């Protein structure tokens, strides 16, 4: 069946009406039966009493017999029999029906002519009166009476059905209005829907929808700004590559060509780096799923990352000191993300530490937290800048090193995804930078 409020309502209401109608009919039939039985029994008793008050002689008279017949008109179903003391039949309302006089007086049932009869008999002096009636005759009347109650019951079904149809339609009108209002919007229009005029029942739904629209609007704005920034950030390295390629094409001598190629190579590498950083950031959005988290050995991951950058550090004559704590430091997270986090922090540290400098990594563990610190004595970040460096594409003014301005934004996104926190402090002896990442223990 189609999922429709109107259809469901009507179906169940009519089913309910039918069931209650049937129940009422049965009940009516039962109660009416009881009443009618009583009524008929009383009737039998009264007629008997009247007849017993007569003398045999009067009863014998033709005129009386006529009178009885007249009085009983419409109650032909009653068989009235009067006997004398000597068991001779004095009178019978239906002479063809010869129901014998029953042995016990009072009410009783007897089988006669293949059907059950109800009878009542009483005797005074020398007269015995017996009134009997086929039970089927009684039941026919009962059925007739109770069926008269059924008609209005059945009649209300179509009337109520129509009423429900109309009322439900009226009730659902605001829903249709809302859906029309939503349908007529384009995908850019994310302002909330008006809810003041809506019925109480659908207000919460539209309220929830409005909240969703607002979140969507926010997310869309963030996304748009990101796309604009990303486009800007991609244009710069691509411009460099384009110019380097133009220069390569123009170069005449072998030396010029070689120099241009080296520069082009650097330009392409830089473009790739920007693209990688952008993708890394996109992958670290907080909404990103956390179901591929696993138990990770932080000290092992760190030493893997350190071995990759050791060469670069040595070339700059920077001493890169790994953690002395090589116990298993287990955290719960996404392997690729944690690697990107460590790579970015080490890259930053090496980039902004001057030749001959020092970078040290420290791992600590408390009962509830894992703490990783990367401390250097490089150029550091001024206190005033520390809050802003996590913004996407933010670069410290006058920064000599080339960068995308995404590194710390990526780091922060990963930390957030892992429910951790990040702090920036002074590095060694008030110089440089100390980055402290705190992961909660699961």
């Amino acid at each position, binding site marked *: 069946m189609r999922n429709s409020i109107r259809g469901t309502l009507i179906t169940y209401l009519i089913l309910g009406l039918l069931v209650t109608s049937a129940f009422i009919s049965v009940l009516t039939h039962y109660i009416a039966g009881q009443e009618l039985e009583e009524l008929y029994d009383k009737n039998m008793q009264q007629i008997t009493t009247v007849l017993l008050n007569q003398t045999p002689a009067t009863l014998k008279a033709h005129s009386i017999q006529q009178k009885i017949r007249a009085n009983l008109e419409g109650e032909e179903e009653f068989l009235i029999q009067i006997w004398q003391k000597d068991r001779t039949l004095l009178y019978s309302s239906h002479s063809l029906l010869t129901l014998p006089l029953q042995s016990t007086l009072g009410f009783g049932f007897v089988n006669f002519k293949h059907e059950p009869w109800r009878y009542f008999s009483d005797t005074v002096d020398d007269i015995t009166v017996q009134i009997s009636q086929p039970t089927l005759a009684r039941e026919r009347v009962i059925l007739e009476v109770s069926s008269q109650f059924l008609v209005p019951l059945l009649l209300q079904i179509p009337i109520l059905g129509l009423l429900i149809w109309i009322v439900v339609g009226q009730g659902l009108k605001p829903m249709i209005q809302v859906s029309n209002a939503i349908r007529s919007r384009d995908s850019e229009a994310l302002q909330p829907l008006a809810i003041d005029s809506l019925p109480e029942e659908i207000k919460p739904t539209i309220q929830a929808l409005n909240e969703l629209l607002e979140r969507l609007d926010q997310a869309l704005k963030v996304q748009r700004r990101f796309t*604009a920034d990303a*486009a*800007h*950030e991609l*244009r*710069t*390295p*691509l*411009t*460099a*590559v*384009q*110019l*380097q390629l*133009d*220069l390569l094409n*123009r170069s005449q001598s072998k030396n010029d060509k070689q120099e241009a190629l080296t*520069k082009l190579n*650097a*330009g392409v590498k*830089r473009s790739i780096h920007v693209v990688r950083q952008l993708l890394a950031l996109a992958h670290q959005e907080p909404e990103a799923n956390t179901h591929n988290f696993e138990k990770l050995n932080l000290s092992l991951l760190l030493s893997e990352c350190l071995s990759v950058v050791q060469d670069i550090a040595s070339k700059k004559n920077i001493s890169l000191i790994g953690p002395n704590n090589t116990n298993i430091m287990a955290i719960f997270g996404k392997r690729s993300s944690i690697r990107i986090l460590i790579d970015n922090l080490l890259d930053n540290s090496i980039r902004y530490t001057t030749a001959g400098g020092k970078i040290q990594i420290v791992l600590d563990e408390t009962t509830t937290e894992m703490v990783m610190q990367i401390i250097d004595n490089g150029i550091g970040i001024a206190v005033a800048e520390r809050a802003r460096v996590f913004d996407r594409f933010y670069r410290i*003014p*006058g*920064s000599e090193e*080339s960068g995308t301005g995404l590194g710390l934004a990526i780091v922060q996104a990963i930390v957030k995804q892992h429910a951790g926190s990040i702090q920036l402090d002074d590095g060694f002896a008030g110089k440089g930078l100390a980055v402290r990442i705190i992961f909660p223990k699961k």
Partner: protein
Amino acid sequence: MRILLIEDDQMIGDSLQKALTQSGYTVDWAKDGNTAEEGLKQQAYDLALLDLGLPKKSGIEVLNNLRQRKSTLPVLILTARDQISDRVIGLDAGADDYLVKPFDLEELEARIRALLRRREGRTESIMRIGALTLNPLTHEVCVAGEPKILSAKEFALIQALMRRPGAVLSVSELEEQLYGWNEEIESNAIEVHIYQIRKKLGKQAIVNLRGAGYKVGQL
């Protein structure tokens, strides 16, 4: 012809300086807004290439200050911002042209030539004095239709003289046109270039007015 390149990106600046120098321009490179402003105050340029996202002082600010000093220097904006509103802001601030990154070197050079031509009030791109013609696009210098091969500096020197026919340029003025901030100038460099040009084009190509300087002659 001296150009001030204002660009904070190392790779882009490096490539542009190299390419434009090869094309015979003298290119000074300022990497931030303050340096650019200083350069513009101290040196007479023929054109400025301006990036908008600069450290220390924004490109728009540099441009505004330049126009406030009533300078008519042609300014070509080079930027990665491509919104219509950005272009409007740039052009309203007094830029003469606008090029969105990434761009083609050929296009940049064509636009530079167009701006310089407009500044000199020329409509034709080829310069012509008597039998001497110079094509800034192809770097071709001809005497009576016969092509002559000049070095980049020689080309720049004859071009500087041809741009102002009749005007006498002193040695120091020519040095300024030919040598950028970081270039070493040998004491008699200009004289050496002039000697070479006369040898290639003919003695009458450059006229020497003793004590005053040089001007382009009639061939």
